């Protein structure tokens, strides 16, 4: 199956902001990260996305928050992004 992967910053140094990945049927987010790491070894995707085997960024699957074990389906859009909370300097 094929999923679309997007990085909503700060993954500026990943090879592209959007990429397509082919995965085994039933693969979950963890499997996707493993695959990303293989595809871009020099970019250290694993270190950027995980810490101590846990996600360190948010993952949205078709715009809904997911986790490491969320199963992916063909055509899914997976977005990795920082937790964007609140804030502004125009206080």
């Amino acid at each position, binding site marked *: 199956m094929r999923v679309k992967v997007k990085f909503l*910053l700060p993954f500026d140094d990943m090879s592209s902001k959007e990429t397509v990945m082919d995965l085994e049927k039933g693969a979950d987010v963890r499997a996707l990260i493993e695959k990303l790491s293989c595809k871009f070894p020099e970019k250290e995707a694993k270190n950027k996305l995980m810490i101590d085997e846990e996600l360190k960024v948010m993952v949205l699957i078709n715009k809904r928050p997911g986790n490491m074990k969320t199963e992916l389906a063909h055509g899914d859009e997976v977005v990795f992004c920082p937790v964007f909370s609140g804030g502004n*300097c125009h206080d």
Partner: protein
Amino acid sequence: MTYGYHGKILRVDLTEKRIWVEKQDESFFRFYMGGGALGAHYVCKNVRPGTHAFAPENIMVFCGSVITGAPVAGFSRHSVTGISPLTGGIADSEAGGYWGRALKEAGFDAVVIEGRSPEPVYLLIDDGDVEIKDAGHIWGRDTGETQDMIWRENDDEKIRVLGIGPAGENEVYFACIVSELKHFHGRGGHGAVMGSKNLKAIAVKGDKFPPLADQEKVQEIARNFAGRYMDFDYTRVLREIGTSAGISFQNYSGQLPTHNWQTGCFPGAQEISGETMMEEIGEDKGGCFACPVRCKVSVKASKPYPISKRYGGPEYESLASLGSYTGVSNLYAVAKANELCNRYGLDTISTGGVIAFAMDCYENGLLTDEDTGGLELKFGSGRVLLDLIEMIARQEGIGHLLAQGTKKAAESIGGEAKKLAVHCKGLEFPAHEPRVKKSLALAYGTAPIGADHMASEHDFSNTPETPAPIVQRLWPLGISKPLSAQDLGPAKVKFFYYTHILYSVFNSLDTCIFCMAPLKPLGLQELVDAVRAVTGWDMSLWELMKVGERRLQMMRVFNCLAGLDESQDALPPRMFEPLQGGETHGMAISPEEYEKALKLYYDMAGWDSEGIPRYSKLVELDLEWVEGLKERSG
């Protein structure tokens, strides 16, 4: 010997042209520390609740905190506190930059301004010497010209100037105070209060920074921050493109307030996104004292509008309020609107909010061409956005109505207009959606200044999907149960209650939340360690939290006595209407869930069923003296 602070408060009576220095002892500073807590103390002691914001009896307290100016990232901010024209209650507002440190270098921890000068003046504080100087020739000038003229006549470009533009002089209710052209006391209309006092600017310089108790430890904390901040994704985003990065994420997830809060999806988001802005008009980066993050982006353009980089560039809030709120997707128009607000001294959030409200009224027939002088206030028009900013700053035509803020404008328009007015207590909503992140309903409803997005941690820092390392950083507060952003049950009330106090600590220390836990590098224990190292006090997180609580409770008592009763904790009707379209389609707050959460929060905070702080709570915080306000307000 005091460390980190002087123990000196500068008092200035503009009516009598009297200047004196008041000394406060260590216990005072340990109790109130600075920022909004110190400000609220002076307001409660000196101003009768119910005083009009523009009356000479209102005061303005400018200060940092005991740690402000210590060379650690995020210890750079300063506050202004006084009565807000928008709410009629007490409000504080913080800004970053260098002015906070410079005030201490000039020899003072705080400046308390009272009275009203009969003619325009500015205040010059030069290494302990204080002078009230004529500003007749500067009056009417924009913020950039004001700074230039003060520099020129004092022959010194290193003087740190904060001041107001024409909007403040004209008492636009949401006029802001501009510090060094790129830092803003945006919220609450303090610029108009300064205008009402005929005070154009406060210029500071000096060489008297107080010693730190443990210089080495302070340096170690700063070094640690510098070594680690790029490991934090949010901070990396800030470093790369600043808060403007928020536009893409907020829109993607259906949370970008659009067309006066009708929907969370803005078709023009890509055009006004941080990424596009950086590419097309991003010029350079800047920041605040001692902070390596440098999150502030300046923009520059020559066509179709000349935009000067002197006035910085739009933050996330400004892109949203001037852009998606009003439906304007022309990046250049939005960036120009931001520049105009900064030159005239207008809060971008309230400006965008009131313009979006007016557009909604116009599209619904509540404002007619006759009211607008022929201006077609349709969502999406960049030209109208820019025209209205000019008219608001000068209080001309329809600008006069809008210059009173959304709440008062809605009252004047009457009829259904109130249903379209998105504010709490009179303060327009910042660009975070309470229908999606529901703890914000409590924050906007109950924060002392009105709808305040910097009043507490937002829900996504503690959801089941939030990465564990982030969630765990809230554990020292006693928050360990992740909750859905859509939850507004008892555990969410507790999440709000604790983090509201934590943010009040940040407001009392005048620290930058972009440097602080849970999402940013400086952990809670490190903050405590830093306070200890700067002041030499054996401070604990508990003691800091009590300072934060003190600020909130003083403000609440003052506001209750100023007539901001529980009805003022209500949410605007639009929050009970479902969001339209996109991923958040259908999300709304139900009146019952809000009412239940609100009553539970009152109880948790030590307030009675009408939202008035109980005597026992005041005693617990050593604030019995605040009860004395009752006599004065009667």
